[in-house]
């Protein structure tokens, strides 16, 4: 089964890394086909960016952008003013928001999950150039929402990728895994 995920965020928040981590974790969790890619503009830090991930038990030949995602991850709810994040979302698709609010406090025409990744990032002191990096906690939360991906694989993928900040990021992921609400 093919699962398609879109990440919405801003340059510098690590949306692309989130997609990559998810793909790694998915591979580690036993999926044969995994893929992660950005839709890069020539964006600078702070500008809206989009990243994609695909997970499947078979080899993936698709190279096009995801137009009908199963899951949408919003790293920064601010962009929801500018971007319609539910566009194309599958019928039973889920939107995962980085927000302190509960799903019930969010009015959206679809299933919503939430986690306060920014606070988790700040608590774990993961910042780059003053901007909290919310990608690792969100990937942790995804492990809860996606069938084919387990949290141990996520933590492993984080540890492979991050040098000295690996621990803090892995902790953040685990914390989010536990705190995410659907």
């Amino acid at each position, binding site marked *: 089964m093919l699962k398609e995920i879109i990440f919405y965020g801003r340059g510098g928040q690590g949306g692309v890394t989130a997609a990559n981590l998810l793909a790694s974790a998915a591979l580690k969790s036993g999926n044969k086909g995994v893929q992660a890619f950005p839709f890069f503009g020539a964006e600078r830090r*702070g500008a809206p960016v989009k990243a994609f991930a695909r997970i499947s038990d078979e080899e993936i030949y698709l190279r096009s952008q995801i137009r009908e995602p199963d899951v949408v991850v919003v790293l920064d709810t*601010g962009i929801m003013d*500018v971007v319609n994040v539910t566009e194309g979302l599958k019928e039973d698709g889920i939107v995962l928001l980085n*927000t302190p609010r509960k799903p019930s406090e969010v009015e959206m025409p679809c299933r919503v999950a939430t986690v306060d990744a920014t606070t988790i990032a700040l608590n774990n002191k993961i910042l780059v150039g003053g901007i909290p990096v919310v990608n690792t906690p969100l990937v942790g939360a995804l492990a809860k929402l996606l069938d084919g991906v387990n949290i141990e694989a996520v933590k492993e993928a984080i540890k492979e990728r991050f040098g000295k900040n690996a621990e803090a990021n892995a902790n953040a992921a685990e914390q989010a895994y536990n705190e995410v609400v659907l």
Partner: protein
Amino acid sequence: MGKTGTWRVFRPVIDKEKCIKCWFCWVYCPDAAIARKEYPEVDYDYCKGCGICANECPVNAIEMRREEK
């Protein structure tokens, strides 16, 4: 040329009481987001929240506050 105010994580808030009108915040703002009115005025539609104004204000009249969203 979208409204770059949405990029912000922290917002500059100017305390007019403290302000001595040196206009450093105006001249240094990379986004031309501070207007030189009677007092400096931030255009939150475009301010990206870099914090240079606050960092450069000689009398600490600008505070960077976490955006509520």
